[in-house]
């Protein structure tokens, strides 16, 4: 909540963007996103698409973890369900890709709900372990159910087409991915202005109090799993169609951890936080490997070290954020905004 802003009407108070500064920032951001692909080269477009997919997945996970307070380590498994459902339907049964993406979302949503059932009896630590088990079980099914998933072999997915246009370049896919990312963000922001979203937040803050106030905890927790997994499934399905290839290595426990790191570093319980976190965690390894390439002439051994530097940086950043800025990048961003709004009288 911004300080120093006073509304005199209810519509003004309930609006999504309440100040001119917010509207201008949104306009600048949208303009940037629209102009960016026209000037960016292929490498930056690839990065942008990866960020977009990560944003969708991170928002999905944040609905569950950040807003409803249910810790999930099963993200990688749910992404796999989305990717394989869409991939198999398109590649083997010739379902149009947009239909298969939608079906993948629904299937992931169902699977997520099933693995959410333990959350009715467990919370915190125990739920984290249960979802970790879900991750291991889903990945095992994916690698061993040869008849359907092709086991450990890669599943090749044909290029999607839209209105006769083959979506085979990063430029064309950019619009699909970021369009869907925008829709996901908008839907999620609005979700938390409805009574469903408020119920999720109430469960996170104090589950017993929420129940006393008439919220059916079972129903809303499962609903949260379902909505969250829906978006995660969307991210998974996009991975399948964008990469044209689905392999199980993309959905390991490490992926679950990376997504959790995204929303913690970005900011739990915040859509903009998911965006910051997904961007940061996707660009960090790319930045480090570019840095390594720059330093190659000075330090010849750097090529072999880069993967380890990336891994160590990943862990260190999680640790440092948790110790020094547990509320994440979003808090830093808010502090910056506050500083300038109150300038020169910020304390």
């Amino acid at each position: 909540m911004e300080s120093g802003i006073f509304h005199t009407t209810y519509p003004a108070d309930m609006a999504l963007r309440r100040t001119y500064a917010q509207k201008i920032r949104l306009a600048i951001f949208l303009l940037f996103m629209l102009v960016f692909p026209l000037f960016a080269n292929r490498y930056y477009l690839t990065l942008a698409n990866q960020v977009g997919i990560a944003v969708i997945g991170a928002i999905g996970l944040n609905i569950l973890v950040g807003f409803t307070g249910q810790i999930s380590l099963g993200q990688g498994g749910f992404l796999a369900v989305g990717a394989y459902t869409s991939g198999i339907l398109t590649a083997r049964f010739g379902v149009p890709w947009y239909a298969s993406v939608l079906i993948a979302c629904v299937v992931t949503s169902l699977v997520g709900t099933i693995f959410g059932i333990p959350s009715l009896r467990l919370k915190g630590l125990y739920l984290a372990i249960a979802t970790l088990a879900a991750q291991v079980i889903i990945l095992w099914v994916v690698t061993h159910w040869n008849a359907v998933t092709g086991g450990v072999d890669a599943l090749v997915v044909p290029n999607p087409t839209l209105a006769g246009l083959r979506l085979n370049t990063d430029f064309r896919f950019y619009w699909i991915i970021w369009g869907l990312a925008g829709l996901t963000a908008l839907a999620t922001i609005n979700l938390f202005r409805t009574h469903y979203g408020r119920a999720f937040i109430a469960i996170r803050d104090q589950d017993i109090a929420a129940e006393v106030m008439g919220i059916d905890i079972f129903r809303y927790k499962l609903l949260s799993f379902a909505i969250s997994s829906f978006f995660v499934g969307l991210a998974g399905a996009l991975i399948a169609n964008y990469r044209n290839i689905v392999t199980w290595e993309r959905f390991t426990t490490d992926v679950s951890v990376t997504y959790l790191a995204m929303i913690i570093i970005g900011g739990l319980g915040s859509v903009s936080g998911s965006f910051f976190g997904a961007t940061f965690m996707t660009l960090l390894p790319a930045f480090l490997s570019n840095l390594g390439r720059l330093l190659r002439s000075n330090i010849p051994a750097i090529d072999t070290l880069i993967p380890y530097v990336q891994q160590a940086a990943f862990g260190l950043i999680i640790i440092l954020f948790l110790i020094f800025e547990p509320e994440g990048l979003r808090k830093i961003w808010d502090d910056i905004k506050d500083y300038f709004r109150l300038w020169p009288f910020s304390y």
Partner: protein
Amino acid sequence: MDMALFIQLTLTGLTNGVILALAALGFVLIYKSSDVINFAQGEFLLIGAYMTYAMIAQVGLVWPLGVLVTLLLAIGLGIIVERFVLRPLIGEPIISVIMVTIGLSSVMQAVVNAIWGPYGQNFPPFIPSEPISILGATINADRLWATAIAVILLAFFTYFFRLSKEGIAMRAVADDQQASLSMGISVKKIFAWAWSIAAVTAAIAGALLANIVGVRGELASFGLRVFPVVILGGLDSIPGAVIGGLIIGLLETYTGGYIGNGLNQVVPFIVLILILMVRPYGLFGKEIIERV
């Protein structure tokens, strides 16, 4: 039913189970005294294995001295981790504590890989490992040695927590930090104790595993494999870790031996989910888990 196969599988399963129990022990110790779930347990084991390797094969110490130095280094590592990573997070929500140990595991893995490379190393076995035949089944001697060492350690820690002053202080801290502070127990010191003991047991398990399966990155997977063990046995129970380890060890080898198809990797996790649904505090854990 093939009797020889059954005995062979049972023996292998039991020795596997003991090693799992040893890996789970450090995990239980930390949970018991500080209520922290340590997702980096597998990496502590990995570091233990590599440090033993470095001391014996690279520095060239005789093995008792090498193991001793490894254990001292492990104590230092445990104290450093507690002081600089876990202590700032006291009182933070559970997701932060889980994530910080995950971050820690990533850093530790990176350091190990950067120093010793991603490939496994040949370890000069310092425990005799020639095959021995028992009841018609063959088993390597180092597995039996590991079992003996594990049994001694587990018995010692059961005694330690039941009867020694420090052990009782650790249990008190786990139960109620404020009450223990007012009884004159230094909670910080207890946490440092818990982490260094956990690091030491992990280092011992790592050294034994290095001898049995070699020094390689996959040792870190034990960090995941202990979850079914500790949930089955009860997160805060040392006897639970032993029984859980034996049951999961047998379950893994029986499903691997009789059914196959990699099912042994996933069955423990199915058991884990079932246990969580039915009896979340496990076989021997305290029944204080908060139900929703």
